[in-house]
């Protein structure tokens, strides 16, 4: 009985009942109890309402004035449940076809050659960095790494569409934006090796990059907590009246967190110039998107909160560039939040602590590596413009690889941060108890050097 009920269309029950599953737009429902108890034909919507669907009634003016809903709400005497899923999934915006050709040149605003080239070279550099740093972790040279494989277009194209004044509030799979803005391979390596040149003073795990200079908030491990932060920062920009917006990145998994809902709701109420950019890559560690939510992805949640939204092919660099450019324009001139769902695939494992072949088929990973690979696709478009060729590719890959390997070698040899750095920045000024503790630690390390690692320098903390 249960399986019959899941099909739309007419079904007959043992009691001779005709049930009509599927309300307008609906797709099946659980009604086992209905059909068993009634012997006469029942309908689930009044027949009159079908013909009267166009003639809405509205409240009179005074009722509208005091209405809780605001504005004119049409009334209908036909009882209708909105389906849990739309008839058709929200369309996904795409600019390049599988051969790297523009599908419809009218719908693409265009891009300068300079930016287009930098986009590709940065995507290749990001991809190379991921390969090399992942290997370094496997060799035991760094403790941990998170790759962005498959999501290079989202990273680089979105960064290219923004300006340096736009604040980035990342999750942890967006190092490409730092790369675009000028973080060097050495900067990335220094953080991963947590040496003394790390901007983060060795305080955090690898890939927890941050740069005040490049307007990129330091990565935190908590999921989706950055989304309300993005709204708060956007509010600050709004109060300053700046020609800039904030972009908060998150994944399909992050959209389940309470913070996501609070952030979108609040951003709409506050009218904050913030772009919520979801990298829907299908997986949250081993949880597939089908176990994460039952809606049509993340894009439909925008309308639920009164937020304008779009679904984009995240592996299409030009589509990403175009969509983020427009979203930025809207967010700043109209002072409102925008939601972008970039549909993509997490080709790599969640992190180096994960082996994704344990929970998903290898064929699926390989298929995504080939089909709509963001680098391959975009490269085809560049080559069709005569802007790229095999020699350039080989040279770029070789140079990037050399640069990154060197960065790792150098970073590995640099001293670690001094012991004094453990005690600073807890507060704005070092409190007396920490100052005392650091002095005591210094004395102990100096007196018993054999008990402590030799490559950790001891240096005094300045007292406030």
């Amino acid at each position: 009985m249960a399986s019959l009920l899941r099909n739309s269309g007419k079904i007959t029950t043992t009691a001779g009942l005709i049930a009509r599953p599927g309300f307008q737009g609906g797709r099946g429902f659980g009604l086992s109890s209905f059909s068993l108890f009634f012997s006469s034909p029942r309908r689930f919507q009044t027949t009159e309402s079908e013909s009267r669907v166009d003639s809405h009634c509205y409240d009179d003016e005074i009722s509208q004035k005091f209405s809780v809903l605001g504005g004119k709400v049409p009334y209908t005497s036909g009882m209708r449940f909105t389906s849990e899923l739309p008839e058709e999934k929200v369309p996904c915006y795409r600019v390049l076809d599988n051969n790297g050709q523009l599908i419809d040149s009218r719908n693409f605003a265009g891009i300068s050659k300079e930016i287009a080239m930098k986009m590709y070279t940065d995507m290749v550099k990001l991809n190379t960095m991921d390969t090399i740093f992942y290997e370094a972790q496997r060799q035991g040279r760094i403790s941990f790494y998170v790759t962005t494989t498959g999501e290079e277009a989202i990273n680089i194209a979105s960064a290219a569409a923004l300006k340096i004044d736009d604040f980035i509030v990342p999750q942890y799979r967006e190092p490409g934006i730092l790369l675009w803005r000028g973080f060097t391979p050495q900067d990335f390596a220094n953080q991963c090796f947590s040496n003394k040149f790390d901007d983060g003073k060795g305080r955090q795990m690898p890939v927890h990059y941050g740069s005040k200079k490049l307007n990129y908030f330091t990565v935190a491990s908590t999921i989706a907590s950055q989304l309300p932060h993005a709204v708060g920062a956007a509010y600050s920009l709004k109060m300053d009246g700046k020609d800039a917006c904030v972009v908060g990145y998150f994944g399909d998994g992050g959209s389940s967190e309470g913070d996501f809902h609070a952030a979108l709701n609040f951003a709409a109420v506050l009218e904050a110039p913030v772009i919520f950019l979801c990298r829907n890559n299908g997986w949250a560690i081993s949880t597939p998107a089908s176990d994460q939510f039952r809606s049509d992805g993340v894009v439909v949640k925008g309308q639920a909160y009164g937020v304008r939204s779009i679904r984009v092919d995240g592996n299409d660099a030009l589509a990403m560039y175009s969509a983020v450019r427009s979203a930025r324009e809207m967010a700043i001139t109209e002072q409102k939040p925008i939601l972008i769902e970039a549909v993509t695939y997490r080709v790599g494992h969640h992190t180096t602590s994960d082996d994704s072949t344990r929970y998903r088929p290898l064929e699926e990973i390989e298929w995504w590596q080939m089909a709509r690979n963001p680098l391959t696709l975009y490269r085809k478009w560049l080559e069709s413009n005569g802007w790229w060729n095999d020699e350039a590719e080989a040279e770029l890959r070789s140079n990037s690889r050399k640069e990154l390997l060197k960065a790792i070698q150098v970073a590995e040899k640099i001293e670690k941060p001094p012991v004094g750095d453990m005690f600073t920045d807890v507060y704005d000024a070092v409190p007396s108890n920490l100052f005392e503790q650091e002095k005591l630690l210094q004395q102990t390390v100096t007196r018993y050097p054999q008990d402590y690692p030799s490559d950790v320098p001891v240096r005094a903390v300045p007292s406030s």
Partner: protein
Amino acid sequence: MISAGVGGRQLGGDLAGAAVVVVVIPRRRSRSIQSTAAGEALRCGGGGIKNAWSLQGTRPAILASRSFSSAAKEMTVRDALNSAIDEEMSADPKVFLMGEEVGEYQGAYKITKGLLEKYGPDRVLDTPITEAGFTGIGVGAAYHGLKPIIEFMTFNFSMQAIDHIINSAAKSNYMSAGQISVPIVFRGPNGAAAGVGAQHSQCYASWFASCPGLKVLAPYSSEDARGLMKAAIRDPDPVVFLENELLYGESFPVSAEVLDSSFSLPIGKAKIEREGKDVTITAFSKMVGYALKAAEILSKEGISAEVINLRSIRPLDRATINNSVRKTNRLVTVEEGFPQHGIGAEICASVVEDSFEYLDAAIERIAGADVPMPYAANLERLAVPQVEDIVRAAKRTCYRSSSLAATA
């Protein structure tokens, strides 16, 4: 009852930059004793006050404290908080308020009364019901350079936002190596009110005080409220500001120095409310009042108690506490919250570590009962410390009780 409240506020606005004095009338009969004729005159003559103060000149702090050293003025804790927030918002345009009911409703407990009208909806934001949301937004705004004051209707509701307080606000400066600072204040009533049950009565002092990166303050009097609130707003670090609902309506005498707009109290310094030599009693927030009453009772029985108002839970003023215990040799810690891992436990550890040889008796901890707060009035009374409990504990440390059972 003439309300000089509005006049007082306008006064503040007119004299911005000069002496800012807010003379207010307590909303209900205050519990304090002073009610001199001079005091009455001051309360009813708003205009007279303005003229008197305007003679002080532009740098009144020093002059005022010399000319008006006697505390004839009284102020409720509510007004102390309101005036402190008002003055700081006036002085720094980056300071803004956010919380449920803080604007149109004038504040769930009227602490933010009049501020929406004065500063507008850009700086006083009424929020949807999402503590996680507005706390996160406040943290993000602080990251970007604003100075938010986030109000929790009570700190019980801060539990829904505690991730942002601990993992984001407290740790960001450290994790970002100083690139991201979080000059935010989280404030609201903490601890037991009256007849509000388990989910509205918990004291969260020890929850926040255990976390490095946060500062935790707990004012008692109006002077504490004004001074600590101003210090908190000006502080570049995240501050958790624990108020008490039952103290909002209480009036305390305030000196002219306290009323000055540049007044602030140092964070991390406790105050010795009453000097004594036989036993040290530490307390914070509402329990300071109880400790003072206990000290009064004890003095009649020949025990001179020194009452320390902690003011600052983190950093804890270990020096003042230890110096006091080295003088009296006995200690009773008092708090409203649950006993295990409470503030008293930390004070006890500190004294045992630093002043062990000075103790003549075991340290006594007075805390709330180890149960979720019951609602029935008689049970509630039994679940929170009472003055008699403090008196008995002090006597026990002085070996004055006849038996171990608390029947004295």
